[in-house]
């Protein structure tokens, strides 16, 4: 079998291939490269400027790095670079052989807009376009190695199947039409520049940090000598190198007072596994990584606490011992970041009045954002001494403010900007990388870059807050609510970040959506030695909506009522004042009311008989459930955005606005708003965004503000500019202003067209600037509604949950871009389903995250998601711009309770604690001898 193996020959030296140059072609271009031993093809291609090759995981799980090696698609992050010798590599940039044309798959992705942030797009196209890729069926198997966190995959499926959703533009009437993103062509061709897609500047230093292996510890000593010996290491920084008297919070808000100042850039106390300990700056990532290994740190290990209830007990270890009022921590000695109590009416009396009371405790788990682009930023000084920071952030302006504060800078010397950002979901409403880049650039004078690994995304960014919610509802026999109360305990982790605001928000809409005279809540945001929690789509409401909507179903079942009927009986009506646990109304108003219509739409769809067939085996039980949610349009804190619109010499326009675009589509909609007012095609509106040098101030793109506040500012500015243009045109043509209207690149004055270029030239000669600046605020605020319904089948023995039908109805007011709005709904639904059924971030007893990889922490792949039927209510909001309400954040909120309610309906068992995975469901199912009641009809 193995004839005469000789073991005598020594390893020939010719077999050594360290850094030997080799030939290959990349997109048809011959290249000579000398890969490092251990280098993968992904970084080699990027080093040669092929930035269409992305890093989502660096481990073979996400597919963002897909390229072809001699026509075979591979994950380039797993492909040893030396094996590319003499091969032909094709990246997204080389997919279309001729310049200026698109490969059919690229064209299809544009036509269906099979993307949101677009970070996954290149890899997905390279997979679908490959031989043996899309040709194989089923598609979900072909794409099992391509993850998308934004779309929920329906748009990707449509793109691959060649469906078209993009409509033609109607100049002056583009609002309401499904227009593509202005960045679409760059995304499908791999030309879009995400944060890391910049050639390294000379002298660039790469950053890595040593992270704490302990959940709670005091640093005693740090030995860095051995690390400094590693070739390529430039400098090493510890807590001694950063000001210890300047605590901050990594969370960003217009008013920084709402978050606690409890964090130091580098600290001596470690409060979670994964906290930064030591910073290394080196000429290469490799040198920085090797140096990190060589740093020795002595710790005194302190007792740690991971459960928020335990953390509030008197004997618990204290995380932020001795911090004073300046930290804005409510009770540092009890680990309580924020405590909120409120009562509206008289809850005790309300429960007295009740015929029926239900009470239960629900728990929700941690969820990481998993933006496909990891957090990263880079900084450099320009010859004029100004500091420039490019970052993957939702809040460039607030990041600037934070950096100014941390480093005592003159604001005019600092420039912060984003270009394309690969997903946000709230995870990039934090300053997590920028501070240390700036530290290094200021200390060394050299450019610095820091790009998180996927593991760091899990262990060292933020997550959705885990909540424990005890809900008590009282109602009369006819279903009328008499009292609602809840006790909410949230786990904010080692640092407060958004913890206080998330808690506050969580106590509002879940209750305010129901009419009930008596409402009360106690809320506690509590420090523990877990990875910090932060802002995440839904902002705390997702968790309390889960609890309250589950409790509403339990109440319905106790009363023997249909769950939808119980909701109809109690939900708010047009004209109602929105009240939660505080007696005085805030600035929330029902600017439009589509809740009832949404509920009707979902009920009708669930009753339609559509969806997957019901499994016939008696081992499966089936059921259905729904839930509703209301979300305020914009944050209660200060939020403002300013837009500037200029008429350009060629008769087109430029909109400058500070809001960031990371896939939520605000840029597309803002452009449609401007074009509609200005009577031109969207093509004539150039967008400049998210740049503290080039655009006016914007608080940031979070809390559903991209359309609402950003769009509002664009609308206001466009109206002013239009007014200016018409007035001047009327003067120049001598026609009455009423007869003048904007029409493409001209003003039509009673059939006398005056080209805008001419108008501009004349106006400038007269000393007029044809430019308008307007500001918008998130106040007053309207509310958006979402209702979700599911039909599910649950396997009584294995515990597997199968979604048979998924239906969502949204009240987004006037829908400014139906295709895009649907995409936002689908993306939110996907995150909700993932959260409930799959995403289980596990903590070891020492507080380490057990599955910090996409291999072992599974976000939904295409195969895991049903296609959701999406409906919109027919409303027009009186507050939002052009009647619109935001619709990127809210769709996630009713998903978890609807799913839990459907599972409860199917099994007859209420599972209160998320996630609802098979290993957690099956023991209870197995111990239930009788079949559940299947007869509770929902409509």
């Amino acid at each position, binding site marked *: 079998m193995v004839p005469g193996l000789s073991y005598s020959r020594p390893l020939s030296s010719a077999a050594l291939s360290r850094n030997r140059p080799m030939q290959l072609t990349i997109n048809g271009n011959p290249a000579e490269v000398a890969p490092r031993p251990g*280098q993968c093809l992904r970084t080699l291609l990027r080093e040669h400027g092929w930035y269409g090759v992305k890093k989502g995981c660096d481990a073979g*799980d996400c597919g963002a790095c897909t390229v072809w090696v001699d026509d075979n698609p591979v994950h380039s992050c797993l492909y040893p670079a030396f094996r590319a010798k003499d091969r032909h590599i094709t990246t997204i940039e080389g997919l279309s052989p001729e310049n200026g044309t698109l490969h059919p798959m690229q064209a299809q992705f544009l036509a269906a807009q099979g993307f949101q942030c677009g970070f996954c797009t290149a890899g997905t196209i390279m997979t679908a376009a490959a031989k043996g890729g899309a040709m194989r069926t089923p598609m979900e198997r072909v794409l099992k*190695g391509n993850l998308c966190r934004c779309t929920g995959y329906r748009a990707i499926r449509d793109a691959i199947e060649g469906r078209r959703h993009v409509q033609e533009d109607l100049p002056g009437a583009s609002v309401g039409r499904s227009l593509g993103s202005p960045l679409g062509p760059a995304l499908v061709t791999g030309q879009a520049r995400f944060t890391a897609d910049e050639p390294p500047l000379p002298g660039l230093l790469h950053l890595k940090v040593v992270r704490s292996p302990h959940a709670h510890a005091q640093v005693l000593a740090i030995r860095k000598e051995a690390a400094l010996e590693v070739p390529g290491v430039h400098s090493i920084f510890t807590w001694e190198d950063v000001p210890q008297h300047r605590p901050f919070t990594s969370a960003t808000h217009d008013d920084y007072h709402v978050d606690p100042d409890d964090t130091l850039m580098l600290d001596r106390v470690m409060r979670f596994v994964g906290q930064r300990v030591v910073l290394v700056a080196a000429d290469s990532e490799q040198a920085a990584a090797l140096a990190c290994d060589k740093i020795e740190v002595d710790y005194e290990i302190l007792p740690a606490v991971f459960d928020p209830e335990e953390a509030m007990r008197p004997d618990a270890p204290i995380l932020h011992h001795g911090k004073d009022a300046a930290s804005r921590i409510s009770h540092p000695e009890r680990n309580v970041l924020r405590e909120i109590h409120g009562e509206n009416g008289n809850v005790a009396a309300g429960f007295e009045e009740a015929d029926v009371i239900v009470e239960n405790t629900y728990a929700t788990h941690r969820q990481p954002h998993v933006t496909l682009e990891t957090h990263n930023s880079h900084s450099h000084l320009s010859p004029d001494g100004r500091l420039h920071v490019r970052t993957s952030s939702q809040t460039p302006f607030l990041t600037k403010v934070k950096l100014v504060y941390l480093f005592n800078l003159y604001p005019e010397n600092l420039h912060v900007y984003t270009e394309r950002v690969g997903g946000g979901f709230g995870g990039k409403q934090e300053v997590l990388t920028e501070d240390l880049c700036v530290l290094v650039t200021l200390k060394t004078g050299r450019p610095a870059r820091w790009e998180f690994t996927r593991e760091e995304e899990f262990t060292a960014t933020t997550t959705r807050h885990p909540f424990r919610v005890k809900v008590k509802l009282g109602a009369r026999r006819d279903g009328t609510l008499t009292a609602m109360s809840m006790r909410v305990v949230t786990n904010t982790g080692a640092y407060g970040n958004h913890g206080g605001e998330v808690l506050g928000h969580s106590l509002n809409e879940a209750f305010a959506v129901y009419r009930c005279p008596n409402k009360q809540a106690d809320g506690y945001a509590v420090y523990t030695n877990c990875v910090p929690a932060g802002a995440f789509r839904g902002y705390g409401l997702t968790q309390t909506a889960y609890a309250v909507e589950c409790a509403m179903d339990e109440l319905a079942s106790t009363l023997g009522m249909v769950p939808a009927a119980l909701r109809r009986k109690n939900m708010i009506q047009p004209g109602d004042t929105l009240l939660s646990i505080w007696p005085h109304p805030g600035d929330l108003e029902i600017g439009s009311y589509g809740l009832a219509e949404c509920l009707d739409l979902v009920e009708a769809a669930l009753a339609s008989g559509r969806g997957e067939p019901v499994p016939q085996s008696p081992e499966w039980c089936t059921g259905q459930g729904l839930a509703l949610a209301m979300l305020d349009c914009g944050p209660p804190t200060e939020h403002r955005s300013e837009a500037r619109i200029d008429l350009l010499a060629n008769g087109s326009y430029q909109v400058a606005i500070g809001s960031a675009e990371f896939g939520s589509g605000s840029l597309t909609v803002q452009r449609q708003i401007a074009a509609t007012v200005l009577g031109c095609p969207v093509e004539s509106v150039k967008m400049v965004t998210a740049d503290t040098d080039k655009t006016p101030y914007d608080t940031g793109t979070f809390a559903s503000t991209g359309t609402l506040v950003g769009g509002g500012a664009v609308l206001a500015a466009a109206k002013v500019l239009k007014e200016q243009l018409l007035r001047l045109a009327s003067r120049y043509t001598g026609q009455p202003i009423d007869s003048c209207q904007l029409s493409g690149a001209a003003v039509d004055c009673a059939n006398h067209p005056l080209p805008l270029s001419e108008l501009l030239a004349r106006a400038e000669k007269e000393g007029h600037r044809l430019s308008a600046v307007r500001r918008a605020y998130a106040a007053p605020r309207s509310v958006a509604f979402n209702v979700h319904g599911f039909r599910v089948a649950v396997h009584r023995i294995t515990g597997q949950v199968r979604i048979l039908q998924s239906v969502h109805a949204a009240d987004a007011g006037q829908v400014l871009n139906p295709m895009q709005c649907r995409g936002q709904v689908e993306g939110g639904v996907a995150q909700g389903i993932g959260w409930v059924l799959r995403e289980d971030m596990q903590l070891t007893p020492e507080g380490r995250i057990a599955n910090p990889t996409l291999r072992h922490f599974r976000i939904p792949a295409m195969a895991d998601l049903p296609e959701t039927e999406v409906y919109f209510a027919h409303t027009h909001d009186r507050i939002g711009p052009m009647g619109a309400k935001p619709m990127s954040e809210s769709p996630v909120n009713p998903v978890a309770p609807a799913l839990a309610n459907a599972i409860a309906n199917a099994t007859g068992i209420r599972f209160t604690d998320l996630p609802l995975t098979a290993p957690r469901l099956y*023991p209870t199912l197995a111990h239930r001898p009788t079949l559940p009641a299947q007869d509770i009809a929902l409509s």
Partner: protein
Amino acid sequence: MDLHHITAQQSPQTPDEVQTWEPGLAWLAGGTWLFSEPQPVLHTLLDMGNFNWPSLQAVEETGLEIAATCTIAQLHAFGGSTGVPASWQAFPLIQTCCESLQSSFKIWNEATVGGNLCLGLPAGALISLAVALEGTCVLWPRQDLPRSVSALEFVTGVQQTVLRPGELLRSIHLPASALRKQPAFRRFSQTQEGRSSALLIGTRCPVTAEILLTITAATVRPVQLRFATPPGARDLAASLEAAILPTAYFSDPHGTADHRRHLVHYFAPQIIEELA
């Protein structure tokens, strides 16, 4: 990902060029696992890319010889080919097992069958295949003469095998007698195309009617039970209890030990019934 700790890479033409072994060396097959996580204890990769072992050799009378370097893509394509002996009833298991991997077809283009076995993961579906079809692994040690072990013995625990330092897995032989058996297959994964929590394969000998039940993914190493006649429910449960101690069930983020045990006891009778 870039493996920062790797300082050297060698491309021997034949394995015998590598005579001495030391910690820090690793054979590089497809690299799909090696490059998927940091490898802080390795410094040198030994590329197996030049060995040019014939990937697959099928002979009706003797069976199927799979080189360790055969890619999963090659094996999967072969599993879909039509020219195989009609008597090989178990042949469809090849594709079913490949498709039970969490990895995508793009990874199969590079990942090798040998790499899957040598990694020794409970969810190694090609381990399941090799064990269920009574495979024999041919091993090439660095210093000694080649040896063979049964596929059942090859994996000894989670990411543990009988391989000695530097020893190569050369090939896996699936005997024709096993390929002629009637197969039954059950698998559970928490996600649709995800990693297996339990993967059970039964085969029934067309000559003796003996049933072989192979349990993988649920357990820290493969377990095989042999039944001369189909066991009754109680006997089957007792055999499972006897063969798999509670500690032998695997627990990881893809499933808990108790759920896996539950699944094994649910699927095993189904397999027996299907084959009886």
